[in-house]
């Protein structure tokens, strides 16, 4: 994941576009590990430090 930012140096735009098309074909809503393998999206885990968003919103709670 830490190498993701360098992918455009290794792959051309056409290459990355093909990866994106393949991903879209299998996982159109990009719900499985978004931002893990391909550049473009931030992994949700990185923007959510601290309690789970649902916990923050008061929907779930710890014992």
């Amino acid at each position, binding site marked *: 994941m830490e190498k993701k930012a360098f992918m455009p140096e290794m792959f051309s735009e056409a290459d990355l576009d*093909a990866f994106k098309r393949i991903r879209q074909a299998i996982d159109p809503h990009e719900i499985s590990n978004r931002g893990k*393998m*391909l550049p473009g999206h931030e992994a949700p885990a990185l923007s959510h430090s601290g309690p789970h968003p649902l916990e923050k919103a008061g929907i779930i709670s710890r014992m």
Partner: protein
Amino acid sequence: MENDFKLHEPQTIAELQSLIREASIISLNTREDSPSPPNTITLSLSGFQKIVEYQPEEYTITVEAGAKVSDVISILDEQGQYLPFDPPFIDKYSTIGGMIANGYSGPGGNRYGILRDFILGLTFIDGLGNRIKTGGKVVKNAAGFDVPKLMVGSQASLGVITEATFKVFPLPETYRTILFRFDTFESGHAALLALGRSRFTLDALDLDSQGSLVIRLSGQSDSMDVRIQALETLIGRSHEVFSEDKSIWTTSLKLQAFPQAGLLLKIPSSPTSIRKIEAELAPYSTQRRYSIGGFVSWIHSDNSVCELSELLQKLDLAAQIVSGDTIEHVIGTDHPRAFYDRIKQALDPQRKFANIYKK
């Protein structure tokens, strides 16, 4: 031959790309003797035969897809290296691109892995005419999807392969090929299972329908006799010398070894499932060979495609057609089809290349 038949031999990637962009149906011709359907742009990659990069000390080789497999094998051989997956059915027409598209591996896949384990990088032109480079030129590479493996066995239905990088191995010092003959298929099969569970690292392990087990060992010459004795102890009988010549494996697996007429099928199997395959397919086939320790079954049959497809469906098996007078690529069950159709849509949305499943 039809008047409109023309073999296109692009010399540059740009030419190849524009041919693909303009065409409505594309077929790849690596064999001069194979006919192509009408309204088809038939491509030959004869303009792409270069060895792009070969660094023996790195144990990798990058070649263009039109390079002949036999040429690549001899270039490697000069440096004491080889492709351990033992590409089968190789003749003077066989190209690297065709080899990947077919995806076959020979008996040598038993020890070090099959074709897909040796392909590190791949460049291809997709159905939109985009040049896509995937994988890399080094053994340790994990960036992006492993598209090179996806293209192995795709039968040129997802794109036109233009270049590939392989991992290669040093040639073993010596080979020894031995034969254990059994009275029945069942007893040969029992020995194959026992060997699969044993500590032996066999270069190749093939079983035929008569129950003969053919084993190839490779390594240091002074260890051979000891290893063969240990094998005899495990199997409980003595061996026959089959041949000291490594080429017996490739010649025995050439298409010529199976009858020219009829159908040759490749069925993915397992060491345990081949027992059922042997029992069920015996009445419908003329020759059966279980290779790579039982993980690949080569079945030759004189029956019709239709009949075989129905039978395989009933047995929940799929087969790739290696040769035969038919336009079908895969028969039997089509479980992976949902996945294949999506990938096909992503890489070849206009359906310019063949489809490996029936419409």
